[in-house]
């Protein structure tokens, strides 16, 4: 079998080249195909990934300040780089966006008397939510309802929250020019209609493009392994997996709950190199779960589709919904999501 590998060079090629030219055509075409294929084979998943516990920058982040990011369900989108966005114009953007939203809400709707259309939009920078110094600052947008009653300084209720971030986005930062700000990951919580309006405004103002970020089963199993590997002082939730079985007429859902300490013990027995997670370890971890389930229920979970993973660190759904429960690993979770977002953009 190894004989085929050795003559990568001329002897084999010269023998086959006559035949090749006859079948495939001129060699320049083949060279072009070769270069296109090389570009297309961009590697999306390295098999090793470091688990981030706490980056130095995160120590500057006050846990109180980011507490509002936890325990909320965020819908994920990937965002192409923003053109001519500046952190100094945040007040200006707040004003413009408020006006836009007010106009949108009044357009085409019957005016309901007594309905409160007065809303306030706040843009602010989330300091410390980044992986390296090169990452741009995270941006937070909130829609608050303006309180009608005095005292005026009472903060209104938060109706919608959205934030943009870029954690360890080096691969994207290297490819864009100075005019662009890269914030590839967008997380939104709140009414879908608000998300759509804000998305439209951003797309018009900064010439960018949003697209929903779906997480496939392959990446979900990676997340499950990485989050199970995280060291926790105490576990706030059981580790749960949900699978969807494609069958007619209605799909079947299977859920599998494990005690988090058992899951961690299983992971520790599989894990070899410290500080890195490899593809083989993830596969082995999932295979152990599948074979255990098969032994009891005679169902091959590997033939079904993993749709949701829930651990004490975070929980993720294949439709692109995420809920982060632990502030210690917040940056780590966001780093992986940023990577998925960047991959989707490219």
């Amino acid at each position, binding site marked *: 079998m190894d004989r085929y590998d050795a003559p990568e060079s001329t002897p084999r090629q010269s023998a086959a080249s006559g035949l090749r030219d006859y079948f495939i055509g001129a060699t320049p075409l083949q060279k072009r195909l070769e270069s296109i294929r090389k570009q297309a084979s961009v590697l999306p998943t390295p098999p090793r990934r470091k688990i981030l516990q706490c980056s130095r920058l995160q120590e500057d982040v006050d846990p109180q300040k980011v507490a509002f990011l936890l325990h909320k369900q965020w819908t994920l989108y990937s965002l192409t780089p923003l053109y001519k966005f500046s952190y100094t114009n945040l007040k200006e953007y707040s004003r413009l966006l408020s006006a836009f939203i007010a106009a949108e809400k009044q357009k085409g709707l019957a005016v309901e008397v007594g309905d409160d259309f007065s809303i306030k939009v706040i843009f602010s920078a989330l300091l410390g939510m980044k992986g390296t110094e090169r990452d741009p600052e995270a941006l937070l947008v909130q829609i608050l309802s303006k309180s009608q009653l005095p005292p005026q300084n009472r903060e209104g209720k938060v109706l919608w929250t959205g934030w943009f971030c870029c954690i360890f986005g080096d691969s994207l930062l290297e490819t864009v020019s100075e005019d662009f700000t890269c914030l590839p990951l967008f997380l939104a919580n709140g009414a879908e209609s608000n998300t759509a309006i804000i998305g439209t405004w951003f797309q018009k103002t900064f010439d960018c493009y949003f697209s929903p970020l779906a997480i496939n089963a392959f990446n979900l199993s990676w997340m499950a392994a990485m989050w199970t590997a995280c060291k926790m002082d105490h576990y706030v939730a059981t580790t749960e997996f949900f699978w969807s079985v494609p069958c007619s007429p209605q799909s079947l859902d299977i859920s599998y709950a494990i005690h988090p300490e058992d899951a961690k013990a299983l992971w520790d027995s599989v894990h070899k190199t410290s500080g890195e997670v490899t593809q083989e370890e993830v596969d082995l971890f999932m295979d152990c779960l599948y074979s255990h389930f098969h032994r009891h229920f005679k169902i091959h979970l*590997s*033939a079904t589709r993993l749709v949701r993973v829930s651990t004490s660190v975070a929980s993720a759904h294949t439709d692109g919904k995420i809920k982060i429960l632990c502030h210690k690993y917040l940056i780590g979770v966001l780093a992986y999501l940023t990577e998925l977002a960047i991959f989707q953009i490219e």
Partner: protein
Amino acid sequence: MLKEDCASELRVHLAKSLPLPSSVTRPRIDLVVFVINLHSKYSLQNVEESLRHVDASFFLGKVCFLATGAGRDSHCSVHRNTVGKLAHTYRSPLLFCDLEVDTFRASLAQRLVRMLQVCAGHVPGVSALNLLSLLRSSESPPPEEL
């Protein structure tokens, strides 16, 4: 594939896994196509199991891997590189096709029938081994060892 026009008789035998039962006499097998569904890890494991039962002489051009389901990335649980590596290990060509789409199916059927004709020796001047080296030299370099 059976809808394609072919000079001689074309027979297709479908099996969920190998080895095939030896109690039945069957005509000579010219081409083995392993279908891997990227949505299901079970499918990959099944194929890996079955590969062990294939005689080594088949790998000289008479085996081909077909990966389906790459179109719906959100449903994929097997990575493209995994099947790429598998095909590279067994020195056999890897084809991607979404079997659920009619037009793709039709063009793939044509391609497989052509391959089959070569493997059965019905095309003068080209043997299965020739075809294999042709397909390999025009492929991109193997997935990097990471």
